[in-house]
């Protein structure tokens, strides 16, 4: 690849810096997927941030260099080439980007660098028992008292809550405003008496998520992002970063159809269970494998189209496609096993798998926006179909119905 002269000198600069400083990290830190936060990793990330390689698209004032996207990609490529973590956080660090975009000077000074160095744990305090698909219907309240806000309510589906230092919280500060306009966005300190974290037992009998109960929890006014009542806009910024990270993950998936030398797991299972000759099973096998391959092909095509600068409708289809794949595969595993799927426990790993996958498929078809919400998004944002009329959009939130009643405050 040939680069323009300024790009060439940037690349040389990154290379030289990495050659001088990057010595690798001890084994446990270099896990196959992601990075666990060790002291060595944090020390490295601090070096990267202070050398202004963590967020080169950002302004000078905040550890950046004001580089263009194309220039920043050069930095990221050089880091990737030697396997060094820490670059590209101006795209991928949800917390730091949200804070930079909307935080107060004081909060930015306190947290930007620690966030870039993974020195603070974070979690998301968005969903509530009464506000799932309809996130703008949150009822957790934050009331201003002098230089802080007092928060009451409950949040759900929070991972990492037990170890987090801060939670990105949306709470209602104005009950007279319409639903989207009375929400504010905070960095809530998690380690305080008013915050209680309870693990949530999932249908799979696992505990990945928590409920978080907020009882007179305190958040300093300087931890409010943007202004009071402007939280919905901040949330959109945060969600966009979250989606772009998820999108990157999807785009990084296998390019094109897999050409694995090993047998498809579902074929292997059917063979082992002695039903590979069953014509009905064979039809379902072909279809299930096809859906997975089609999704990989769609992702590869979207990636290629995006690289050419065209927008691709295909990117938004991945999650919906994956729901169908996971449910279909689980159904097929069950069909392959027949009565064996009645069983569970360590002596019946095949049944255990089929049953776990059956239940865990809902993680994808409900989590991160249900399939139904996803279809609305595709219909409205990709196909341009009009939205449903919203009966609660322009009335004071205190008059919005929840269940059969209006809000009680």
């Amino acid at each position, binding site marked *: 690849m040939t680069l323009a002269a300024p790009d060439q000198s940037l690349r040389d600069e990154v290379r030289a810096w990495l050659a001088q400083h990057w010595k690798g990290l001890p084994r446990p830190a270099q896990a196959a997927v992601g990075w666990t936060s060790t002291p060595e990793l944090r020390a490295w990330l601090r070096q990267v941030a202070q050398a202004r390689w963590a967020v080169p698209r950002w302004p000078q004032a905040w550890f950046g260099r004001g580089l263009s996207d194309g220039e920043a990609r050069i930095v990221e490529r050089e880091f990737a080439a030697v396997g060094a973590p820490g670059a590209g956080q101006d795209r991928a660090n949800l917390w730091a980007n949200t804070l930079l975009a909307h935080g107060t000077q004081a909060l930015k000074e306190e947290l930007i660098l620690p966030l870039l160095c993974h020195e603070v744990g974070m979690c998301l305090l968005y969903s509530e028992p009464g506000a799932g698909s309809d996130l703008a219907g949150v009822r957790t309240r934050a009331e201003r008292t002098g230089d802080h806000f007092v928060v009451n309510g409950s949040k759900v589906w929070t991972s990492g809550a037990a170890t987090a230092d801060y939670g990105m919280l949306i709470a209602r500060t104005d009950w007279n405003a319409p639903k989207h306009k009375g929400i504010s966005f905070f960095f809530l300190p998690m380690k305080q008496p008013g915050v209680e974290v309870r693990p949530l037992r999932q249908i799979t009998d696992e505990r990945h998520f928590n409920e978080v109960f907020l009882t007179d929890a305190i958040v300093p006014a300087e931890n409010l992002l943007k202004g009071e009542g402007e939280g919905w806009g901040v949330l959109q910024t945060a969600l966009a970063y979250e989606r772009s990270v998820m999108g990157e993950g999807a785009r990084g998936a296998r390019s*094109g*159809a897999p*050409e694995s030398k090993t*047998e*498809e797991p579902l*074929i292997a299972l*059917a*063979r082992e269970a002695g039903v*590979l000759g069953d*014509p009905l099973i*064979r*039809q379902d*096998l*072909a*279809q299930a*494998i*096809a859906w997975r*391959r*089609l*999704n990989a*092909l*769609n992702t*590869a*095509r979207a990636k290629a189209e995006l690289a050419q600068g065209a927008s691709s*409708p*295909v990117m938004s*289809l991945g999650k*919906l*496609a994956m729901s169908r794949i996971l449910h279909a595969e689980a159904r097929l595993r069950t069909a392959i096993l027949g009565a064996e799927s009645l069983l569970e426990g360590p002596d019946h790993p095949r049944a255990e798998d089929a049953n776990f996958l059956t239940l865990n498929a809902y993680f994808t078809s409900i989590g991160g926006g249900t399939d*139904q919400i*996803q*279809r*609305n998004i*595709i*219909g*409205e944002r*990709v*196909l*341009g*179909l*009009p*939205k*449903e*009329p919203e009966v609660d959009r322009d009335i004071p939130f205190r008059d919005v119905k929840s269940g059969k009643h209006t809000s009680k405050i």
Partner: protein
Amino acid sequence: MASLSAEERVALTDAVTRLLADHGAEADVRRSMETERGYDPDLWRRLAEMGVVGLTIDEAWGGVGAGPMELEAVMEAAGAALLCSPLLASGVLAAELLRALGDQDAQARLLPGIAAGTSIATVALTGEAGTWTEDAVSVTAEGDRLSGSASYVLHGQNADVLLAIARTGDGLTVFEVEAKAAGVTVTALPTFDHTLRLARIAFERTPGRRLDGEAWPAARAAMDLALVALAGEQAGGARRCLETTVDYAKDRFQFGRAIGSFQAIKHMAADLLLECESAVSAARRAATRLAEGASDADAAVSLAAFACADAFVRTTADAIQMHGGIAFTWEHPAHLYLRRARADAQLFGTPDAHRERFLEALGA
């Protein structure tokens, strides 16, 4: 086979789209489908001049010398417009059979006319079973004389030259037969898809010219290219059908609002978008793998065959439901697409058969 550059491919596809907008609009399609031959000779001539008819035929024989990727791209445009033509029969199936057989004399004799569109060829491949499998061949040859019959022959009634696959003492062999030869009886079949032409062809001690080459592998190669073409047609047709349906859902008001604002309609549209885009991905992937001569081309073609067939049928069927009453009328084009989709899903094997072949290609 060579490939055009991506830019050339786009330019070619755009040119075909423009040609079909001018000469292959819905009214033209309806006019063509009611004629006996089922296509517009004038449009056919234009397609030939543009290089579409001889797209994958070697330049030495007057073709463009392009490959599956270009064919697939052009067929997306053709499918969107419901093009009525013997392209699949002549320029794709027959031409590819001749290429794969490798009989140079036959190529020199037949391909220039096929590429120019002045001669229409087709392949008599399957018997009444209509499975397009080896065991369904039901023409037999004694010496150079053919007997028996073939059915579901694409544009058999319009063909000048028939390439008939026949059983001989030495296995399957391809014979070149003049459509007007003695002992050939061509019976046009009434088709559910009025834009399609099929015929039953009976041979009675008909003289044929034996062609060199391995008949069944060549027939498979011809069907693979035809399946890629068909996949492109299905993907393009499905996409067009969804587009017009979504447009209608934005315009059609009931209960004081556009019907597309109802989730009952919106969710169907979202599901169809997934089907259509998956079909496009599958068709293009199959074309690429076939062009590269990849070892997994078999799997890619089979996958495209059933994914695109199912997507086209589902999209066109749901499109009628989403439109409501207006699409239950003859004058509305929705049924034309459904008819085409149902036809495309049977040619060269059913979706179920392709699923089976896909699984076999994966070693199961």
